[in-house]
């Protein structure tokens, strides 16, 4: 080898030296690239980078400043070779070597800061005041003689600036510049990668937390809904959930069957019972009746004391609502037998009921305010239905229907017409029919 070298001309020697230097730099570059790309930890990546710049290239003072969206400042994320860390210090974009590099997205090498400042400031002859002013609020050197800064770009987007400086009038030659540009490119990618990873990590965590919150909210809502449905008929709840809030209070005209069921002589019966027993009785009554009503697609609109108000066809329309209402009434009469056995066993009482059914147009809709609403069915059909039920007072355990019901289902059941009766609020007498219980079953 020595022989060969001895034969080289001086220019060949220089070329070999340059090649050797370039080779060494490429190896270092490769090693730095692989080290800073090995971690997803931004802090570790940046500190590794700056340490290597010192170790391999002799950049004793360096820092990495990063941008953040919408911020006119760059923030120091890592620094190397300063007594004070300075992490978190800020540089305005457009100010100083670092700020100008961020603004123009091009590298800048200022090897002669102090000398140049004196040229730019012919007015201020007092050098001291100039030097005082150039003290950057950075981890930076108090009196840098030379600075070089390199933009960290990922697909033309600025992620930050890599800056090196020296108290000596250190010269960064064009070779240094080239190497630093390559390192800056690698660093930008590594920073971008760790930031993406961090953002992804944070996002995943947020999604996980959100999922937990959502599922607990869902459970809560489900519980509330279940409780709610005990107070409000399920079809009403479901219909409301499907309805846009602004149309929540839109009323609708529906033709439906209404059924009223009352306990005869309830006041008298309840007088013989304790309040607790009255509640037990009512609950047994509601439970038994609800089972039957549900079976015939009736919707319990209200329990008022011993009265049950059922709609067939509201809020959800059903076919043959008149027939279903009558069958339901007969089913309730059947159920009454079973219920009375239970009541006899636990309270030593028995009850009798009366049912009235009517068919016709009603106004149905949610009434109330935004805070408190009630699904309500109103109109003459409802009032008459209630009055017809009242007629059974004298004849317990009967099912009475109106002319409109009778008209629709007279072929399905046997009826006994009553004498037309006067109904409160009605000018003319009203025709009512008693359903023959045995026939319809």
């Amino acid at each position, binding site marked *: 080898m020595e022989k060969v070298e001895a034969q080289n001309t001086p220019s060949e020697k220089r070329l070999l030296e340059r090649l050797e230097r370039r080779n060494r730099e490429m190896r270092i570059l490769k090693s730095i690239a692989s080290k800073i790309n090995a971690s997803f930890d931004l802090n570790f990546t940046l500190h590794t980078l700056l340490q290597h710049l010192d170790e391999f290239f002799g950049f004793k003072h360096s820092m990495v400043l990063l941008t953040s969206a919408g911020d006119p400042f760059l923030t120091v994320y890592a620094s190397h070779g300063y007594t004070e860390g300075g992490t978190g210090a800020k540089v305005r974009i*457009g*100010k100083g070597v670092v700020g100008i590099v961020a603004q123009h997205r091009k590298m*800048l090498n*200022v090897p*002669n800061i102090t000398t140049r*400042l004196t040229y*730019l400031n012919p007015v201020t002859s007092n050098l001291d005041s100039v030097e005082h002013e*150039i003290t950057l609020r950075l981890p930076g050197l108090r009196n840098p003689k030379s600075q070089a800064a390199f933009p960290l770009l990922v697909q033309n987007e600025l992620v930050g600036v890599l800056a090196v400086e020296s108290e000596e009038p250190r*010269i960064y*030659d064009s070779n240094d510049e080239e190497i630093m540009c390559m390192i800056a490119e690698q660093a930008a990618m590594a920073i971008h990668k760790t930031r993406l990873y961090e953002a992804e990590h944070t996002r995943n965590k947020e999604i996980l937390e959100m999922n937990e919150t959502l599922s607990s909210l869902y459970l809560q809502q489900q519980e509330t809904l279940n409780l709610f449905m005990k107070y409000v008929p399920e079809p009403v709840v479901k219909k409301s959930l499907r309805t846009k809030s602004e149309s929540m209070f839109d009323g609708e005209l529906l033709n439906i069957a209404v059924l009223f069921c009352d306990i005869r002589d309830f006041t008298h019966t309840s007088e013989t019972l304790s309040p607790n027993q009255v509640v037990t009785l009512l609950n047994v009554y509601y439970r038994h009746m609800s089972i039957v009503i549900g079976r015939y697609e009736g919707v319990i609109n209200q329990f008022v004391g011993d009265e049950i108000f059922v709609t067939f066809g509201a809020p959800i329309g059903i076919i043959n609502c008149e027939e279903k209402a009558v069958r339901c009434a007969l089913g309730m009469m059947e159920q009454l037998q079973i219920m009375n056995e239970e009541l006899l066993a636990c309270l030593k009482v028995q009850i009798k009921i009366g049912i009235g059914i009517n068919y016709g147009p009603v106004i149905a809709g949610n009434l109330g305010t935004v805070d408190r609403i009630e699904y309500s069915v109103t109109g003459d059909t409802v009032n008459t239905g209630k009055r017809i039920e009242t007629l059974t007072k004298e004849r317990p355990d009967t099912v009475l229907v109106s002319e409109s019901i009778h008209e629709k289902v007279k072929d399905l059941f046997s009826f006994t017409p009553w004498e037309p009766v006067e109904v409160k609020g009605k000018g003319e007498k009203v025709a009512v029919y008693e359903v023959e219980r045995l026939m319809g079953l």
Partner: protein
Amino acid sequence: MITEDMKIAMQGILPSLIATCDADGIPNIAVISQTYYIDKDHVAISHQFFNKTIRNIQSNPHVCLMIIHPSEVAMWMLHATHSHAENEGELFDQMVMQLEAIASMIGMEGVFKLQAAEVFNVDSVEFR
């Protein structure tokens, strides 16, 4: 023509001198903070104010630039001829950045406006 050592001398650690001549042959010598290296046959200086140097090169394009290496205290004399002025492009941008960076350090950003980059052909180099 311009070597690596000379590039270092041009970075202004020690200022450069430029000698120009007006139409009547009256010489003028000015101190300049930095001579910009373009390639081995071209250099540039910044034109910020319409001063004597700029006036002179407009009537006589021949100049002498003296550059000094900061550590070896070697000196070179560049004999150069003014070629043209650039007020956009890579060279101009680099010079603007240099100017803005320094100016903003003393809170004088926007005060110094780079008019042009004055580009010179280097005709010969004399080592002193």
